[in-house]
């Protein structure tokens, strides 16, 4: 199991976890909009669970959910330790495809690379 943020123990086994990193690309598992969020948050508050390629799930904020669908491809990025998701458009997805095919140097790749550097997760490598 891969968890984020890092945890000492796997939630399901009393086994110490080891750090790992993943590219910040994944898909929307679900999302909601809170119309009266708790004190300290602006309304409307968009929240999503995002599953990264590699399995870790993140809770993220987003600036917009217009047209967003469960399963949509998104990039996530941390600003001041808070993760935000943003929709990957058709063009971004095409670029991502080319990055996977071995090309480098486009915007998505840059996002993914910077995330890979910044993200720090626990990864339980023992059998889960």
């Amino acid at each position, binding site marked *: *199991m891969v*968890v*984020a*943020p890092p945890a000492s123990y796997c*939630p*399901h086994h009393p086994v110490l976890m080891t750090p790992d990193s993943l590219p910040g690309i994944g898909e929307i*598992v*679900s*999302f*909601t*909009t*809170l*119309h*009266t*969020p*708790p*004190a*300290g*948050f602006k309304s409307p*508050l968009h*929240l*999503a*669970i995002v599953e990264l390629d590699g399995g870790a*799930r*993140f*809770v*993220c*904020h987003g600036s917009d*959910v217009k047209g967003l*669908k*469960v*399963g949509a491809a998104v990039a996530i990025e941390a600003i001041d330790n*808070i993760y935000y998701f943003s929709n990957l458009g058709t063009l971004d997805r095409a670029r991502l495809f080319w990055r996977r095919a071995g090309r480098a140097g486009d915007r998505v790749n840059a996002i993914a690379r910077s995330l890979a550097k910044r993200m720090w997760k626990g990864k339980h490598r023992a059998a889960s």
Partner: protein
Amino acid sequence: MPDVFVAGVGMTRVGRRSEPLPDLMADAAHAALAEAGLEVPDAIVVATMNPEEFIGDGNFASNVATQMGFADVPTLRVETATSSGAAAFYAGFAQVAAGLRHTVLVVGGEKMTHLTTPRVSELIGRSIDPYERAYGATMPALAGLVTRALMTRGAANAREIAQVAVKNHANAARNPLAHFQDAVTVEQVLESRMVADPLRLLHCCPISDGAAAVVVSAEPARVRVAGIGHGTDTLAMRHRRELTSFGATRMAAREAYGMARFGPERIDVAEVHDAFTPFELISLEDLGLVPPGKAGRATLDGETALDGRLPINPSGGLKARGHPLAATGLAQIVECVWQLTGRAHGRQVAGARRALAHSIGGLATNNWVTLLEARG
């Protein structure tokens, strides 16, 4: 294991109450004791979720015991968030089943309506994973995520989810102790204020005060505890692979049916944790009461209505009887006992012999299934 019986039950009217919490709990407790014909129980188990913050009092086992006149009876407190009442029932059951006590009074209650809604929401939200809470996640927010995933999967549609509220309000209108006494329509539900998209106000249970109590005993009585199961899951939603089924319910159900040596097909009536109406649909399937993917259809077809094949939440459920947190798991058991003994006046399920109570703690991190059986 020796048999354990329910010797007496009692509960207060649920809703906005002016009495102090210990008084509400004493009312419920003394009603249950009177029915059991018991002056003093051997032990007491108290369920309250968060009196420290809701009313500013701690050491609540001793607090309640003293205020109800039982300072000399050994009393402990149990807490598993919103399922605390069901957990306390288990603690009482276990003491009797183990032969440690002959009679145990289990009493649960909560008082919240004196606080503002944002404050109550914040305090209930303390049961959410701290990291997710730091993103502004509240119970309705997490339930909104679950509901969106459920609807996207095609497992329930807006009408089916709304119908749960319609049904449970209709049942509550027949229960004089329920918080809501008014019917609602599908249109009213679908037009109510959006809370956590796609969840609307009338999909959510109200904020309620109230108390409920049960006396468990080794002495044979009209209702036997047939089985109890406990299930747990990760505190964090993001650590789960599945949002639209609760592993903690499935685990609890397996254990309870195993202990009872009968399955869901023998259940005549059930009280199910519908803090948010989609949870009733999810839970019906997790409990095996309807086949996978059929809960929405069964609800629209009236199968779970009071006159249906398997009446669900005849009391009105959390949605409409109300949800005084730690009282709820016990209030469900009280309703089941009334159904099994023919005392659910105005909402009686004819010939009910076996009842199921299902309680969710937190966002399904600590769930309970209790099976009760009529004797004789």
